[in-house]
């Protein structure tokens, strides 16, 4: 399809982050994976208390510091300098993953290469490129958080669907994903498969289904 013919617009990175941020209830403790999910931190409305965890030992980090004001000793999981908010705490890696793996975080948001209709997620290595395999904390987060949301483009750069019947890449966790936020739609993963609960203006059900690799239901 020629983009010029499209009747809808994909969400920008910031619009997507804003949408996700708005959907997180106040009071939740949330871990943001590196890449797209990281941007959610900068879109949580001031004064709205969503507590962000970083697996390198921070609970309660905030937005990026203003230019020139960064504390080099405070980095998040993506190794970016961040700020601490009042009420923040610092701890070591074993304590941090005890928090993650013990089911204490309300939510983790990760990027993904593929999500399957049964909630399987693949996000750590494709084995189809020459990048070194690297898992980081993704498997611990996916298995340990109370809820796993995925934030991703709806399709790959070459137009293939990332929401699929069954993952072809190595799995990060089985039956773990609860919801997917893409640049086109919000999709719940249920016992009957993918259920689209929202989509960008002007995007028809048929087009969204065409861009998705597994059957969609619509709420």
């Amino acid at each position, binding site marked *: 399809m020629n983009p010029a013919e499209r009747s809808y617009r994909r969400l920008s990175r910031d619009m997507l982050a804003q949408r996700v941020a708005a959907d997180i209830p106040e009071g939740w403790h949330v871990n943001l994976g590196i890449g797209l999910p*990281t941007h959610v931190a900068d879109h949580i409305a001031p004064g709205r208390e969503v507590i962000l965890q970083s697996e390198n*030992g921070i609970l309660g980090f905030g937005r990026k510091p203003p230019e020139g004001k960064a504390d080099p000793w405070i980095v998040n999981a993506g*190794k970016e300098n961040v700020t601490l908010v009042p009420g923040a705490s610092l*701890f070591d*890696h074993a304590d*941090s993953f005890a928090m993650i*793996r013990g089911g204490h975080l309300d939510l983790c948001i990760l990027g993904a290469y593929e999500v399957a209709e049964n909630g399987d997620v693949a996000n750590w290595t494709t084995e189809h490129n020459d990048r070194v395999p690297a898992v*980081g*904390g993704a498997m611990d987060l996916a298995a340990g958080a109370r809820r796993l949301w995925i934030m991703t483009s709806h399709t790959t750069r070459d137009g293939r669907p990332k929401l699929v019947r069954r993952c072809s890449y190595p799995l*990060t966790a089985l039956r773990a994903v609860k919801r997917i936020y893409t640049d086109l739609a919000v999709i719940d993963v249920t016992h009957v498969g993918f259920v689209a609960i929202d989509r960008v203006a002007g995007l028809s059900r048929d087009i969204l289904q065409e861009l998705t690799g597994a059957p969609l239901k619509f709420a």
Partner: protein
Amino acid sequence: MIDKQVKSIDEALDGIPDGASVLVGGFGAVGQPNALMEGLAERGLKDLTVIANNAGFERHIGLGILITRGCIRKIICSFPRRSPAFADAYRDGKIELEVVPQGTLAERIRAAGAGIGAFYTPTAAGTQLGQGKETREIDGRTHVLEYALGADVALVEAWSADRWGNLTYRGSGRNFNPVMAMAARLTIVQAQHVVPLGRIEPDAVVTPGVYVDRIVHVPYGDPPLAVPEGAEGASA
């Protein structure tokens, strides 16, 4: 009188043989015992097994130097990206890699320090990284058996240390350092500040001195400001 402070990096590293296993603290550029790693490279050690979260970053800093000089036979880590030295060595088949989920890595190291022989975790169940491992259903969930992971030596970066080896860390500089300090037969600390005994309040000690063998005073300074990671896929 107990005094664990030594006068030089060379003295701190004395006795570490070729083939040693070495735990290395740090996450990103924060809390990395770079001076100790560079000291190991200077000593020309060979066949080291390094256990760390990452596989270094810059070629000319810390692990990057050890890799470039061919000191390391194998790296056990969770996220070996953004290290050109490692990428080259791995592509050329000059270094072995074992990828471990970050939380499992931290917990295996803690287990070694805490006298836990092995433990069951749901992390990695049903994935490639759980393949070939024993599993057990506990409360209806598949758990993978993971063994303790200790080492001959731990290299630790601390913010302050006293002569008994009590340590504090700065900011997110704790990361793997406190658990690694527990899990080695020889724990060596690179400390930004050495303070008189009693200066660190009992409540503020993060690593009690019992875990520390040698301290060398290295006023290394702040880590560089961070450059964000780009990848959308994996986390940390």
